[in-house]
Every structure is written in structure tokens, then in C-alpha cells.
């Protein structure tokens, strides 16, 4: 930690001077008391109301999934030629939401952005929950989910193997790897925190659970040495992974021949969109967490400000990508590509195209102003706008491209059914139920990581900022 006494502030240009990461006086002990006491207190009434709402949504979704299993996926709106609709839109949407967590925990870790420490835990948890929501959709879309294990290449009596040239199989590997790695990363980060909870709790029942989960962590220097190395390696691996996962998801589209899908820009465009949507969701949840859990001194306005800057940067990348789509359509001189692009801005679903553009490109521009970046009203407005906009972006890519392809005789207008909406609602219910439960049972802030960056946490003779 760079102490104010060691470096005179007037030697450093104002923009480069690093603001404190926490507000007020925070010590390792007070941090534990503030963050780790949540699981031991009784939740407030609002929490139960929130849980009742999210659980209702979850059970609604479960009922609609049950109905789908009972009647078959004909209960959905998909039909020739729009065979992929809500299920794949929602899959791509939720996988994308997850990307913010990995970005914060891995890429910002490698860049030594120490502000990430306070929000990394929640963002990682949201990654895991979002991927859980995402995998539901391909599973139920296969029609017979009890046979979904056929997706894995295992020796079987039918003497069949999977097709390794199919991007759909790449997806199976990418999403499973992503989930396993995220869960591993999350759990490793939790171990020292759970050890702290184990040693402070007075309840025998909690002590038993925390003891089992902490694996006997005792904070030995020899352990920290390997632990830090493992964390660094995981961050490096997860960085490559997070870039690959949504690229692989985009291959589902880009390797096909459907006009509007077959584009080389798709992998980076999908990754940027995923980070964009994920950060918006993180901002939305963090504002609520910060307000309701009295964490304003740890999740400061500075965190939200920086997050909103990332959202703004991603919005600009998205704007560039949309323009490139138009440019590609024009420059290719391919009438099918041209038609599919015109469909986005003036076709049957032109409203969805314009909704996407306004929510993703126009509304976030307000974040150029610092006032908007630090105002709840504007950041929530932008976050909700981006969430809607990114969902519709996948709608635009999938439904608009499919509903009119090469063969005009096969064109068809797609209409979702009640079941489609119900299952989407159910995954939102699942996601926020998990978010709420997580807030009450596990430390929402990585206390160990924040302790290490508090003032005076590191020996003074080692005064550079090379620590985490």
C-alpha cells in the first residue's frame, strides 16, 4: 500500500493518484465483523419478501418446464425455419452474464486492478449462477433431457462417437469447462474466508459446516505461498477461458451458412457483448447489495464509477460491431447478407433491431458524464437498458437471421408462446434466488483479499504496490 506520507501527492498528476479503496477506517478485524457477521444474523423482512418473489418466479419456470416435458417442445413457439429461438437466446444471454465475473476475478487480477478485490466474490458467484441458468436451456432444448449425456464422448454399446467438428460439441466442452473452472476459482477464494467464519462462529452447527468446507485451512505461510501461486495460475487460465467460451458460443452461429450468422467478427463481438451485459448485471446487483447490506465503505462509489466506465467502453465496442455488421453486409455485395442486415433495421422485427441499438449504444452514452456514473438513477437505468438490449441483441441475431434465409418459400414469422416467457422468468427466479441465498450464507466480500490491500496490511519495508 502506497502510504500518503511516503509519496507526496503533489508529485503525481491528479488523474494518476490512486484513491483509497475503502472509505473510513477499516481494519482487518472490523472488516470481519462487518462482512462475516451477515450469515450469523437473522435476515430482515425485505429479504424474505425478495426471496418469496424470486421463488415464485422460479416455481413458475419449473411448472412451465414440467409442462414442456409433459407435452414436448412443441409447446414453444419455435418452428421451421426458426428452430432456435428463446432457448438459445436465453442460453447465450445467461452465459454472457457470467462473463463479467470471470473478467473481474481473472483479467483484472492479472492487471493488478486492486479495486476488483471488493467486488470479485459477488461477481464470481454471479458467474456460477448465470452458467447454471444457461445450461438449463440447451438441456431442455434437446427435447429428451434424460438423454443429454449422449453429448459426451463416452464408449457406448451403440459404438457411436460424438462429432468433434461440430461447434455444438465445442460448446459442451467450453461451457462445462467454464463452469468447473469458475467453481474451482470461487471455492479456492472462499477457503480462507470460510476459515475465518469457522473460527469466529459460536454456533456448533455452523462450525461443523465451516470446518468441513474450510478443509482445515490454517493460514500457514507455506500454504499461502502455494495458494497465491495457484490463484495466479487460475487467473491466467481463466483469462484465456473467458475469451474462448463466448467465442465458442459465437462459433455455433459463425460456422454456419445462415446470412447474418456467417461473420468473422462474431467471436470478439460476442465476448465484448458478454462482458457488457455481465457488468450491467453486476452493477445492478451491487447497488442493491451495497445499500441493503451497509457495505458502502467497502463497495464505494469509486467501484461503481469504474464499473460504469467499463460498461461505456464496451458499449462503444458494441457500436463499432453493429456498424461493422452493416459495413460487411454492404461491402460483401452479397444480396442475402444485405437482406438480412436490412431486416434488422427495417424488417418484420425492425423494432427489435432499433430497441437493441438504442439500449446498447445510445442510452449508455450518458455514462460519459461523471455525474451519471455516480448516480444510482442513471446507472440503474443504463444497467436495465443494457440487460434488455443485450437480450434483444441475441433475439435479433437468432430470430431475424433465421426467419428469412435463402428460401423465401420457407420464410415464417416467429411468435413466442407463454411457455417460452415462463421458462425465461423461471431462470431469472433461479438466478436471483441464488443471489439472495448467497448473500446470507457466504461472505459476500472476499475479506482475505481486501485485508491484504488495507493500509498497513503489508510490511512497510516492502512498500511497492506489487501485492494483490
Amino acid at each position, binding site marked *: 500500500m502506497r502510504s500518503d506520507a511516503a509519496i507526496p501527492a503533489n508529485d503525481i498528476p491528479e488523474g494518476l493518484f490512486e484513491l483509497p479503496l475503502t472509505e473510513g477506517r477499516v481494519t482487518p478485524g472490523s472488516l470481519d465483523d462487518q462482512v462475516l457477521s451477515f450469515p450469523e444474523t437473522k435476515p430482515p423482512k425485505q429479504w424474505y419478501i425478495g426471496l418469496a418473489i424470486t421463488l415464485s418466479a422460479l416455481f413458475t419456470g419449473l411448472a412451465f418446464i414440467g409442462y414442456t416435458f409433459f407435452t414436448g417442445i412443441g409447446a414453444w413457439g419455435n418452428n421451421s425455419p426458426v428452430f432456435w429461438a428463446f432457448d438459445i437466446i436465453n442460453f447465450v444471454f445467461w452465459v454472457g452474464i457470467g462473463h463479467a465475473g470471470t473478467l473481474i476475478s481473472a483479467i483484472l487480477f492479472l492487471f493488478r486492478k486492486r479495486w476488483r478485490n471488493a467486488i470479485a466474490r459477488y461477481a464470481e458467484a454471479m458467474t456460477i449462477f448465470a452458467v447454471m441458468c444457461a445450461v438449463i436451456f440447451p438441456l431442455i432444448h434437446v427435447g429428451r433431457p434424460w438423454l443429454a449425456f449422449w453429448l459426451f464422448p463416452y464408449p457406448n454399446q451403440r459404438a457411436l462417437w460424438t462429432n468433434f467438428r461440430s461447434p455444438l460439441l*465445442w460448446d459442451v*466442452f467450453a461451457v462445462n469447462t467454464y463452469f468447473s473452472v469458475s467453481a474451482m476459482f470461487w471455492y479456492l477464494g472462499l477457503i480462507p474466508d470460510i476459515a475465518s467464519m469457522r473460527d469466529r462462529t459460536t454456533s456448533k452447527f455452523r462450525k461443523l459446516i465451516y470446518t468441513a468446507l474450510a478443509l482445515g485451512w490454517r493460514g500457514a*505461510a507455506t500454504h499461502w505461498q502455494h495458494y497465491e501461486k495457484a490463484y495466479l495460475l487460475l487467473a491466467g487460465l*481463466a483469462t484465456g477461458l473467458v475469451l474462448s467460451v463466448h467465442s465458442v458460443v459465437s*462459433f455455433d452461429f459463425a460456422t454456419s451458412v445462415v446470412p447474418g450468422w456467417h461473420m468473422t467478427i462474431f467471436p470478439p463481438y460476442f465476448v465484448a457483448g458478454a462482458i457488457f451485459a455481465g457488468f450491467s448485471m453486476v452493477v445492478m446487483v451491487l447497488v442493491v447489495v451495497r445499500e441493503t447490506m451497509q457495505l458502502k465503505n467497502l463497495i464505494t462509489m469509486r467501484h461503481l464509477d469504474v464499473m460504469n466506465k467499463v460498461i461505456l467502453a464496451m458499449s462503444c465496442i458494441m457500436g463499432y460491431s453493429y456498424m461493422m455488421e452493416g459495413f460487411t453486409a454492404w461491402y460483401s455485395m452479397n444480396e442475402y447478407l444485405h437482406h438480412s442486415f436490412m431486416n434488422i433495421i427495417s424488417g418484420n422485427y425492425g423494432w427489435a433491431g432499433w430497441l437493441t441499438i438504442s439500449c446498447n449504444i445510445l442510452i449508455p452514452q450518458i455514462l460519459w458524464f461523471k455525474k451519471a456514473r455516480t448516480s444510482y438513477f442513471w446507472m440503474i437505468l443504463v444497467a436495465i437498458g443494457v440487460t434488455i438490449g443485450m437480450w434483444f441483441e441475441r433475439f435479433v441475431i437468432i430470430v431475424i437471421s433465421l426467419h428469412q434465409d435463402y428460401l423465401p418459400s420457407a420464410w415464417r414469422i416467429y411468435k413466442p408462446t407463454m411457455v417460452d416467457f415462463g421458462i425465461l422468468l423461471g431462470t431469472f427466479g433461479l438466478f436471483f434466488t441464488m443471489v439472495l441465498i448467497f448473500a446470507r450464507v457466504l461472505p459476500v466480500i472476499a475479506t482475505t483479499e481486501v485485508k491484504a490491500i488495507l493500509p498497513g496490511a503489508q510490511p512497510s519495508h516492502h512498500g511497492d504496490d506489487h501485492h494483490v
Partner: protein
Amino acid sequence: MSETSYAVLGMFDSPDALMQAIPKVRATNLGTVEAYTPYPIHGIEEALGLRRSPLGGMVLVMGILGAITAFGFEYWISAIDYPIITGGKAANSWEAFIPIMFEVTVLFATFTAGLGMLLLLNKLPLFGHPVLSSKSITGITRDRYALALEAESDAFDSAAAARALQEAGAVEVEVLPAPERSPFLTSDFILRTLGGIFAACVVSGLAMFFGTKWFPLLPPMRHIEDQPRLNAQKASAFFKDGHGMQLPVPGTVARGYLPTATGTQEQAASLVNPLPRTKEVFTLGHKVYSNRCEVCHGALANGVGSLTAAYGGKPANLQAQQFRDYPDGEIYWAIVNGKNAMPSHAPYLTDQERWAVVHYVRALQRAQNAKDEDLKVVAP
């Protein structure tokens, strides 16, 4: 202090105090020096003289192994064991194997980093460690820093160790007794169990592979082929004549094959059309006529069909007086037995269809030779 103590813990209130104490305590050579801290302290590895973590090398090796495993598996399946051409690409189109190879590399590397750190290097889980049951642990995982002198042999002098720690600046000192019982779920146990399961899988897998290879005559479940049953041409002692399949009783008629119109055409003249003259019957007759009769006899039954022009045959003009005078039975006989060049239609038409055609032919004849009184019938 007894000789069964495991270690002596000295507590410090700040990382600076801890770092300053380490070289002093190490210089006493009383035992192994270990620090316990709530979060990683930088520079402590050098102060304690720890060797660099070998995790990076382990992860690299396992990552490469993951890449080779995935690529080899994909190549073997796609190009050797199950070469199905998809998307017009060659069976050994290795470029398509890259994404999964990357994912599996990351998977192997991640699990090596995570589990290798926990199980192999840190020997966790370890629930029975003396530090965990010490009074100091609540401080260690919260905001205090401990330095431990751990016993290397039975000659460990805990009193001297406590003194050394106090001299180095420890605010509190705690002597940890040696654990009374061995911990129940250690990383060694988990690794051995996992190793045992893996070995059992390999052994049983190889046993099954070679078992089925060397003893291929033991077929798997084939009960469905072993049911007692009689094939049509097989002998059977059950019947007197020893045949597996018996002839039907004399006089048996198959369903839908009632014998009709046997004998000569004259004999058939007395047969009466059993079908009523309803719209359904005429519709059926029309359908059958246009399928079977029209190509030769023509749509108007006047012997001018589409085949006539092509092949030059001379099918009967059913509008001729001779045929109009035929009784129903004689037309029926001709359909069943064929006449002149016309083959028998019996194999293709049911009895009902034959009679329906007779009705329809009669209707065609009457339509082509309508009289005035026929119009009156139609008029309302």
C-alpha cells in the same frame, strides 16, 4: 513443559513486528519456523527461506498432457475409429479439434492448480492440526500474526522456544500439545483412495477389454434369440405328419378371397350385382375404373384410351351394342378372368371393387346412350 508438545506459537499484532521477528527466531535453530497469517504477507517466503512453489511446473506438464490427451482422443475417434465425413471435411481435419483441445488443456491445468495446491502441496484437508485447536486460531484467521517454532525431534525444548519468541517481540506465547489422535480425513487418505479407485478402474477396464477379446465366444445376452419357436420349414414332432407348419383344413377360404365367377362366361350371366346403386358405390367404381380400366377402354368406355394411340391395340368398345346387352354377371366375369388381350384383374381388385366397376360401366353406357326419359329423372 512436557516433551509431547508440537510447537510454540508466538503472537504479533502487526506484519512489521512479525517480519522483524522472523530472522531472530530462525537464528535460534530451535525448530522449524512457520508463520500463520490471515492473508498472504509479501516477502515472507524469502524471510522464512521457503523454496519456490513447484506448482507452475506441475500445471505446465498437466496442461500439455491435457492438450495431447484431447487432441489424441479427438483424432483417434474422428479419423480412425469412427471416420464419418461431416460438412465435407476430411476425417483427419485437425483444425476443428483445436477448440476442444484448448478447453481440455485449461480443464487439466485448472484442476492441477487447484487440487494440486490443496491436496499435494498443502496437504489439505487436514482437520486435526494442533494449530486449529489452539486458542490463537481465532486471531490468526482474523487480524493477528503468529510465528511458530515447530518441533523437529523429541529433543524440542518448548520452554526455550517460548523464551526465544518472547525475546523476538511476541505479545503472547502459546504451547501447542502434540495431537492426541491421528486426523481422520487427510489429503493422503483422499489421494490414496482416489489412486485406488483409478487403479481399480484401469485394472477392470483392461480385464474387460482383454476378456472380451480373448473369449469372444461368450455372447452377451441373447435370450431373444433363444426362445422356443417353430420356423415355417422346420420339422416338428408335435404333429402327426412331422411338419412344423400345417396345411389349412380342406375348403378353407382366406378372408377377402371368396371364390366367385368360376366356370364359363355364360354360366356367370346369372350372377346378380350385390351392391346397391348409391353414390359411394359409383364413386368407388369411378376411382377403380380410372385406375385400372381407363388407360385402355377410355374415360367414356368407348375403347379410345391413351394406350391405344401408343401401342395400337384394339381394346373393346364397351359402348358397342354387344356389350350393352351383356348381363352384369358377364362383365363381372370378364373383369375377374380377363378376355382376349385383357388380363385378369382379380389379383388387384376386391370383390366389392369389381362389382362397383360393373355399376360404373353401366352408368357410362347409359350416359352415352341417354334417352329422353332419362332427363326427366334428373330434372327436379
